[in-house]
């Protein structure tokens, strides 16, 4: 077991990736991802990682280069944020369709405009249907753990899909936290070498990225859908193994005081810990409040979500992104859709919170609970609201 050290989370993520024997990384600077790229380049410059480090001229080329490298069978990594992720967008479904096990850190940041460098989830939400496995870290330790696990999940022969690890920009990336870094021996024991299915090498020539028309396209899309769905089994296995090796267990959905709760709050990412404090406050006042934290965004954990909310009368879903003119925040839409067929589902309320780095304090989470508690709880009244907005 590694020592507990105070470290900046972005630096720790780079250190963790450095333990994973990567062969290649391609990065382009963008706030708040840059500390990951900078520290990775330090590790390469000091000879601590034996990898090709390609400083590309855009995020589009970063994703293109890791696709090329992953095609050769190299363990390939990149990291980005916001506009960079939007620039990569075109290539994300191609990477998953090509079944390339790329791993990427996303230091989540608001998407322009107006330009804003601070945290929310508006960058990852438009990537929802790219066919990538997507996980969210709640704190620095999770950011490290999920980053290492990502390689094992992505490269598993039954998965072969890219994975993105979402780490809230600034709120997590720039925070100094006491973190436990696994040792090289522990990572070596956990993470086997990457054995690719097919590679771009003249020893056995293959064609990758072929052109497919209507006679095959649907079948290829179905195969990708099956692959993303089936990845869940491997994700659970990897998380169980991690729990046994490191004593920190991971589940698709985490709950806090949720079993007997009448009212639940759902968060994704770093705000879970703040919301947890609000739950404690409400419990102190005798309110049966609880928390549900969604860690696995894709593949979506339907049974776990259903189980987590089955006893609640009211559910508050928080969203860190907006679906303009749509049915509510993207997480809300998914949760609502997942629970639609349940006749005893809770009334679902949606608050859009923490956009562009706006802080959401404990008392505000408590305020959301109170406002919803005061409502009559009509299921048909499901709607969304911007929390804390100046009108």
């Amino acid at each position, binding site marked *: 077991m590694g020592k507990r050290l105070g470290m900046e989370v972005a630096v720790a993520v780079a250190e963790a990736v450095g333990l994973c024997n990567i*062969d*290649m990384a*391609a990065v382009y600077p963008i706030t708040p991802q840059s500390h990951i790229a900078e520290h990775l380049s330090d590790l390469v410059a000091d000879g601590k990682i*034996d*990898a*090709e480090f*390609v*400083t*590309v*001229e*855009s995020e*589009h*080329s970063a994703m*293109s*280069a*890791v*696709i*090329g*490298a*992953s*095609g*050769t*069978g*190299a363990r*390939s990594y990149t990291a980005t944020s916001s506009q960079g992720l939007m620039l990569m967008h*075109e*290539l994300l479904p*191609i990477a998953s369709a*090509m079944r390339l096990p790329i791993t990427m850190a996303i230091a989540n940041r608001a998407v322009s405009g107006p330009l804003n460098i601070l945290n929310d989830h508006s960058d990852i939400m438009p990537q929802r249907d790219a066919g990538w496995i997507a996980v969210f870290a709640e704190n620095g330790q999770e950011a490290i753990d999920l980053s290492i696990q990502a390689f094992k999940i992505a490269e598993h022969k039954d998965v072969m899909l890219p994975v993105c690890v979402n780490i809230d920009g600034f709120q997590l990336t720039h925070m100094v936290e006491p973190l436990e870094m696994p040792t090289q021996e522990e990572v070596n024991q956990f993470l086997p070498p990457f054995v690719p299915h097919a*590679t*771009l*090498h*003249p*020893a056995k*020539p*293959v*064609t*990758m*990225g*072929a*052109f*497919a*028309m209507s006679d*095959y396209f649907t079948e*290829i899309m179905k195969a990708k859908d099956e692959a993303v769905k089936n990845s869940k089994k491997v994700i659970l296995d990897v998380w169980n193994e991690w729990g046994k090796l490191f004593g920190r267990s991971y589940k698709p959905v985490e709950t806090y005081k949720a079993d007997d709760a009448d009212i639940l709050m759902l968060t994704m990412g770093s705000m879970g810990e703040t919301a947890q404090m609000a739950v404690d406050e409400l419990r102190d006042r005798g309110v049966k409040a609880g928390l549900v934290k969604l860690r696995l965004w894709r593949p979506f954990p339907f049974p776990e979500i259903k189980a987590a909310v089955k006893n609640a009368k009211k559910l508050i879903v928080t969203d860190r992104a907006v679906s303009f003119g749509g049915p509510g925040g993207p997480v809300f839409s998914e949760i609502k859709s997942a629970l639609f067929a349940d006749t005893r589902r809770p009334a679902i309320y949606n608050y859009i919170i923490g956009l562009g780095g706006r802080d959401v304090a404990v008392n505000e989470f408590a305020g959301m609970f109170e406002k919803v508690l005061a409502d009559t709880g009509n299921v048909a009244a499901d709607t969304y609201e911007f929390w804390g907005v100046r009108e």
Partner: protein
Amino acid sequence: MNIVENFDLYAPRLINKKELLSAGHRACSGCAEVLAVRLMCKALGENTVIASATGCMEIVSSMFPTTAWEVPWVHVAFENAAAVASGIEAGLKALRKKGRIDDRYVKVVGMAGDGGTMDIGFQALSGAMERGHDMIYVCFDNEAYMNTGIQRSSGTPMGASTTTAPAGKVSSGQKTWKKNMPEILVAHNIPYVATACPSYPLDFIRKIEKAKSIKGPSYIHCFSACPTGWRCPSHQAISMGRLAVETGVFPLFEVEHGHYHLSPDMPKKLKPIKDYFKGQGRFRHLTPVEIDMIQEKVTTEFKKLTEKAKFLKTGTE
């Protein structure tokens, strides 16, 4: 394996007999570009990995579940062939160093059309060349977006009629001069830049072989006649390429470490450009005045090139 008719008679030692772009692809009849790609593969040999941009050559060669490629080949998107190739080069380098693949030398090649190179892929190409990846980039220039239906690109020559810069009552087609891509690549200070045309197959093969021998980035701009888009008979693709060279519209030259050489096939005296224009529907609307204006530009540009070849030659010449 296909053998060129009478192959054994005319060039047994000069051209690799092995077909690495096999027959059965779906290119138009008379396509000079697919011929150029086939010649390129012969010159590169088996120890090659090719990253192709979206475009004619990609769709005609890789219709799932078939492939015409006998070398490792990958297509990702339109604007990123150079970036994908840089990743392949980095990946192979890392794996070779770690002993995870055999230690043979593999040449990485990026390829795209004029749109994929000069317009949408320009940034990725500039980045890859600047970073100094050990790769060859080949632009197959047929002077418009032929795959999507003959739309103008920055490679379309002045006066050519395309579907988005058509000749009309108040327009004479393309209103801009063709972007001088080889000079832009020379400005990247890469070891080797050359122009080529499949109408001069031995010259083209020699240039690919030279690029292959260089450790570092090289760029070959291959002029590839498109009978479909240029509106000329499909049996004239080769003669159109020759006329482009003979008129100085597309001069053949090489730039090695900044030193210019005109290629041996360049004639001493150029033919008038109207000889080249007259066989092509895309130039049919041009008036004698407009042709004279273009002739003047071609003459000036060729003079500039010959001056460079004179003053920027190597010391040994």
